[in-house]
């Protein structure tokens, strides 16, 4: 009797699952899905001008996409985004791996590890807009702390302009990104190492493996998933890089030194001639690139978590069956 009672209840409670999901679903439909569809539609129209509200579909529906693809500034912005991401991510991951190897070394405990982590991560929580303007002041021209140091060490004859030089500007933006994110990556990687089964390390130590052997033969292979995850999420974040390239030099600079994809979209839509249609087309191109990248994240997450969840559910079911079998005896 108790059993059948349970079953009836679990069926009748299903409606609460729908009920409690309603706020999320309604908000998602209004504030995410509708704007997505709307952006896609605008990409096929002649919609531009700051106060315009009416628009018409273009005769050639892909005209905006074609013109965006042929737009030199957009091409530049994609290359810039990639360049800045690469020269930030490679040193960032290398340093994070080095710190991870040091901080998780089992034969040597690093003192004040907590304090170091707090300081490494600190730049990440500071408003990126503030960081961009602060660095613009620090790399200021003709007077600024960095130029001060360079000249007093006689590394340069005169002040160096870190904004007009295309490589100088990109290097500074990449350095800021590196500085803001290596702490985050380090903490993620360390927690990844701590998640590895300690028995693996113990047996390797017993077999006489050196710390570097352990790191390259056990730690790294075990962290494949987490490294891939870090790579893809960083790439998605890099594609959206906006605050720093936008503010380090206003709107990515007159010669597009730090013009990234997001800055390009912003500049197209919200300044000058207010080309909402072109900006929407560029947004959709970015959307597709990011969607493809997030498919990878999706599978990484799903495999990892679903495997756990399934195990848990099986365990739960077994436990329930056992209880139900035991219940009548009592």
């Amino acid at each position: 009797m108790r059993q059948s009672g349970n079953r009836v209840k679990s069926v009748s409670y299903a409606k609460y699952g729908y009920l409690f999901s309603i706020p999320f679903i309604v908000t998602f439909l209004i504030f995410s899905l509708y704007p997505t569809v709307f952006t896609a539609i605008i990409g096929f129209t002649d919609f531009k001008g700051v106060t315009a509200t009416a628009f018409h579909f273009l005769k050639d529906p892909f005209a905006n996409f074609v013109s965006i693809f042929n737009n030199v500034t957009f091409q530049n912005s994609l290359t810039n985004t990639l360049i800045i991401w690469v020269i930030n991510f490679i040193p960032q991951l290398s340093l994070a791996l080095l710190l991870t190897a040091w901080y998780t070394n089992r034969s040597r405990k690093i003192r004040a590890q907590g304090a170091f982590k707090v300081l490494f991560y600190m730049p990440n929580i500071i408003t990126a807009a503030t960081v961009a303007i602060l660095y613009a002041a620090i790399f200021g021209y003709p007077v600024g702390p960095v130029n001060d140091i360079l000249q007093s060490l006689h590394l340069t004859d005169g002040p160096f302009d870190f904004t007009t030089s295309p490589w100088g500007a990109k290097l500074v933006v990449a350095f800021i990104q590196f500085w803001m994110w290596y702490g985050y990556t380090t903490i993620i990687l360390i927690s990844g190492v701590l998640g590895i089964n300690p028995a693996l390390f113990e047996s390797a130590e017993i077999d006489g493996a050196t710390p570097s052997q352990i790191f390259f033969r056990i730690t790294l292979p075990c962290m494949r998933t987490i490294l891939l995850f870090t790579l893809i999420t960083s790439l998605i974040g890099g594609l959206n890089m906006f605050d720093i390239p936008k503010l380090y030099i206003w709107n990515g600079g007159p010669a597009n030194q730090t013009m990234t994809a997001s800055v390009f979209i912003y500049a197209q839509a919200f300044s000058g001639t207010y080309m909402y249609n072109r900006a929407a087309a560029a947004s959709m191109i970015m959307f597709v690139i990011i969607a493809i990248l997030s498919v990878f994240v999706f599978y990484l997450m799903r495999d990892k978590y679903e495997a756990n969840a399934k195990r848990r559910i099986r365990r739960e079911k077994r436990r329930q069956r056992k209880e139900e079998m035991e219940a009548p005896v009592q």
Partner: protein
Amino acid sequence: MNRIRMPDTKRRAGATVYIVSIFLALLSLLPFWIMIANATRSTYQIQQHAISLIPSGFLSNNLAVLNGKIFNPATGFINSLIISTGATLCAVYFSTLTAYALVAYDWKLRQPFFTLILAVMMIPTQVISIGFYQFMYRIHMTNNLLALILPSIAAPMTVFFMRQYMLPALNLDIVASARIDGAGEFRTFNSIVLPIMKPAMATQAIFTYVNSWNNLFLPMILLTKKENYTMPIMVSLLKGDIYKTEYGAVYLALTMSVLPLLIVYFVLSKYIIAGVALGSVKE
């Protein structure tokens, strides 16, 4: 055992770790220290020596320069406070509710719904901003702070982490016994599930708050009236021409925008670092 084998290389390696760590720690602190020191120095002093670690006595002068200009830290602070608090409350409460729907109930569309959440988790708002802006413009919600608060009711990332936390933490037997005691489903959620979820809610609240506080893109396109500007928009104004020659004042303005964050960070740093570690893909 190891110590006997190779004491010298070990000690040297240990020293390298500390040297690099201390260097990186200084690298994190130095820009802020220069900023705070320069906030108290006059523009003339900064032009002579742009780098100084010793504060000077021009704080009030710099403050006077900022006064009456477009950068208004009080307005920015209040607007950011309203948006971040609202967005955090919405995100944390409704994400927990959604996670509860995913964990506690067996409904037909549960799995497809969770798949949807995973699928849209990585899509950033920036790429749909054109449609979002036009939509808000049409319903007259630009310059309305609610346009930046309400969307956080649907925060896929937060729902995901809440679900992951809830799966092992919530014992469904407690929920079942609350039912037997005659509590309604909604009351059970509010009085039994929410307290269990407190640690996860605190972690997510910190990150939602920081993200919302630091957000520049959406507020910048939506809020066009000066009285609605958030702190990051205020900061972005410092790039304007009227501040070109006011070095000391710019540093002071930056300091004003950073100090609240730094204080909160050092108070909560333990939880923040633990929260970052929790957010990774691990078992």
